[in-house]
Every structure is written in structure tokens, then in C-alpha cells.
């Protein structure tokens, strides 16, 4: 099973906990919001990722199982 990280950008308020806890996969933009590397997580990173998800004060960081949540070629992208 492939686990990936994603962030709900509406919930996220740039607390920055995730960047502290998982710098391997999350970096901060110039305004303090996280930029997530959404490639599948390796086994050794998974525990750290779970901790980052658990510590997010806004519950904005999520672990998802399956295909790339960033893929957007679906009906009605902007129509």
C-alpha cells in the first residue's frame, strides 16, 4: 500500500509543525505554508509522517492511501 501526504490548503494556517517534524518531505514557502512532496512514503518515513499528521493543530495534514492525490485530470476542473 502506498501512503502519500497531502494538505488541505483551506484548513492549513501555516503553524509549521509539519515542516519541523518531517523536513524530508515537507518544506516551507516564503510565507510559512508547507510545500508537500506527495510521492509515496518509504516505510522508514511512515512513522514520522504519522506523527506529523497527528501533531497538525488544524488537522490539515492528511495521509492518503492509493493514487496521487495531486492528479487533477478529472471532469470539471474549471468548467
Amino acid at each position, binding site marked *: 500500500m502506498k501512503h502519500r501526504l497531502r494538505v488541505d*490548503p*483551506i484548513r492549513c494556517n501555516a503553524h509549521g509543525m509539519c515542516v519541523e517534524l518531517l523536513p524530508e518531505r515537507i518544506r516551507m*514557502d*516564503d510565507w510559512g505554508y508547507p510545500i508537500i512532496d506527495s510521492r509515496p512514503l518509504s516505510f522508514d518515513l511512515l512513522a514520522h509522517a504519522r506523527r506529523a499528521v497527528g501533531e497538525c493543530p488544524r488537522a490539515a495534514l492528511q495521509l492518503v492511501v492509493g493514487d496521487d492525490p495531486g492528479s487533477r485530470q478529472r471532469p*470539471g476542473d474549471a*468548467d
Partner: protein
Amino acid sequence: MRAGTLVARLVPEGAAPENLEDHLERFGPRPRPRSSELLAALDASGLRGRGGAEFPTATKWRAVVDHAQGRDTVVVANAAECEPASFKDRTLVGVRPHLVLDGLEHAAETVGARRAVVYMSRSHEKLRHAFQAAIVERRQRSDCEVFIEVLAGPDRYVAGEETAIVARVSGRLAKPRVVPPRPFHSGVGGLPTLVQNVETLGHVALVARHGPDWFRSVGTRQSPGTALLTVTGGVAQPGVVEVAHDATFESIVAWAGGTTGEPAAILVGGYFGRWIGAERVWQRGIDAESLRSLGVAVGAGVVAVLPAAACGVAETDRVLSFLAEQSAGQCGPCHVGLPAIADMFHRVAIGRARPAALDMLSRWCSDVVGRGACRHPDGAVQFLQSALQTFAADVRHHARAGGCRFSDQPAMLTIPSNHRGWW
């Protein structure tokens, strides 16, 4: 040069508004194809959405049918036309409201919706009355069981986005939300929902009457049929033209009365589109295949011509500030990032930026892409990136000199006044 063809299917030149009687006389009564028949016809026609995303219409409708599983569904005709440079949807609805409503009824019958909504911007009041009058006419005559209502939303750029429309129709603020779930899965009131641009619905009504072969008889193999374009900027007669997809930019501009001066660049697709040097697209068709290699698409159908005696940097600066202001204020990279980007570009345009500003701008642009709930940030930075490429020399000149001899000209691209509410 390819000739290209001016084909009046949806909006004949100089056409007067048609009431139900005119409409029935011209087109006859609306046919009643079975759901599977119409879906097959739409598939064969190759019709794609005309709101900007160019998604295959039949595929979108099927997604709603597949998720309904016996439940009720909702259809929405999107007449919001939040793109400031565009007025092709309003033109169509003003002349042929019944063709659009035919398409909406087809959509409702095909996906099994009892509720159909026409969604539009609050400021388009004339249009709202036209729609309401047309619906009253139909209720008196027609045997359609679909209940059609008209609903206005805020005049804000992102309020025409699909999930924002769903929110507004569901009784919430017209702000986009995170996808998935997409409207075809969970839309208005949690029901599978189809949101379709009004031009697309007009084409649907014609395909239902005349069939897919008729639809494909003009245009190109991969971009069949006609498109409504708003031609604006440095042309003698700005307006809406309907052309087959093999029409070239040169011929489209000729139909809008020709250019008012030597053209320098064209904004293709509107404020969410891209600038491109006029000479690079002049001889090309507007179909997706002709434009793909250039990275542009007509999208919602805007072709804005920038004359050589105008300032692309100043135009970009104003539009970018507008787009930054139009953020729904939900996602950080959009409501914090876009104003920072717009401010930095403004500093470049007036010659008050540090030397590293352009590098920082390009990094910020790639940083915000894909990080909003909707694609507002993506569209805004794509617009800016195309300007940085197309007007590269002008941008450098502005950064040094603080302007150019054309930067005080009146704005070519209009900026709507800021509407504050979200209803």
C-alpha cells in the same frame, strides 16, 4: 493561410433576441432522445466544455449518471461568465435563451435531475430578467417536468468555479472547496451535480436536433464544431464572433474589423490565459492541436489583441493585482502568495525592485502552482509567467527605467470594480 470559416450556429450576426415562438419556428420542438441515445450522440460529436477546461461533455455527464445510482441529481447552467474580458455567454443567452434552456432540459433528463438551476452573476440584471421571462414562457407551453430556477451569485472571479457554484446553490458562500469529492460525486446538497457552461448547453441542443455528423461537419477532426469568441483589445469592432475551430487568429481579427495598429501580442484565453507574441499565433488555427505546442488554449474563448503602441507590462500589472484581490482568502499560497507576487511585479514595473526580484518572482510562481483548493493561483501565475516570457525585454526595461513610453496609456484590459460580498 487557411481560410477558416465564420459559421453562425449559435449566434447569427445582428440577431434579435428570440422568444419561444421564434425559437420553435426556427428549430422546431425539442426532440426527446433517450438518455443513452443523447450520450452516444454527444460522444460521437466530440463536444467539449466551453467554460475553459475543454473537458469532453459526454464523459462529464456519464460521471454524474454513474454516481447517481438511483438517487436524484442536480444540473446547473453556468452563465456566471466571471472572466472580465469575456461576454460571449451573455451574448448567446441574450439572443437565444431558449436554445440554452433546451440544452439544460436535455442535461436534466439525461442525468435524471428534477432540479435545474441557471447560475449567473448578480450584476447581470438584464440577463436575469431575460432568463426569467424565457422560463415563464416555457412553463406556459412546455411539458418538461424539470423545475428551472434562476440564481445569482457574487461578481467575483472564483465564484464561477464549479465547487463555488455548488456551494452557492447549496446555500453557502460562493467559495471554492477542496476536491475530491468533485461535484459529479457529491455536489448540491450532497447529490451528484452537473455544472455546465451555457455555450456548451447551446451546442448540446443543436447536437440533439441535428446529430453528431452535422456538428462535425465544420472545424477540425479533434476540435469539431464552432466556438464563440470574444475578440477585444486593439481591434476596430470588438465583439463576439462564432467561428469553426480551423479559423486562424488572422481571420478572427479580420472579422472584428481588423487591428487598430500593428499587433504586438495576443492574450489567448482571458485573464487565466497566456500572452503570446502575435507573430507566433497569427497564422494558426484556434483548435487545441494547433495551439498545444505553444502552450496556449482559447479556453473560455477570449482573444485580446495588444497593439505595439501599448504596454504589456502595465496591462499585466493591473490584471495581476486584480487576480490577487480576487482570492477567496481561504488558501495561504493564494491569499498570501498572490498579493506578494503581484506587489513584487508592480515594483518591477515601476522600477523599484531589487535586482534579484525577477528570480524571486519565478521561484514564487512555481511555488504556488497546484497548492490552492481551486486553480485560481495556478491561473494567475501562468498569466504572469507568460508575460515574463512574452514581454521579457519590456520587463527588463521597466525594471531599469521605471516605465516605458506607452505605460501611461489608458488600460486595454478592463478591471471590474471590487465586489466585496460572497453572496
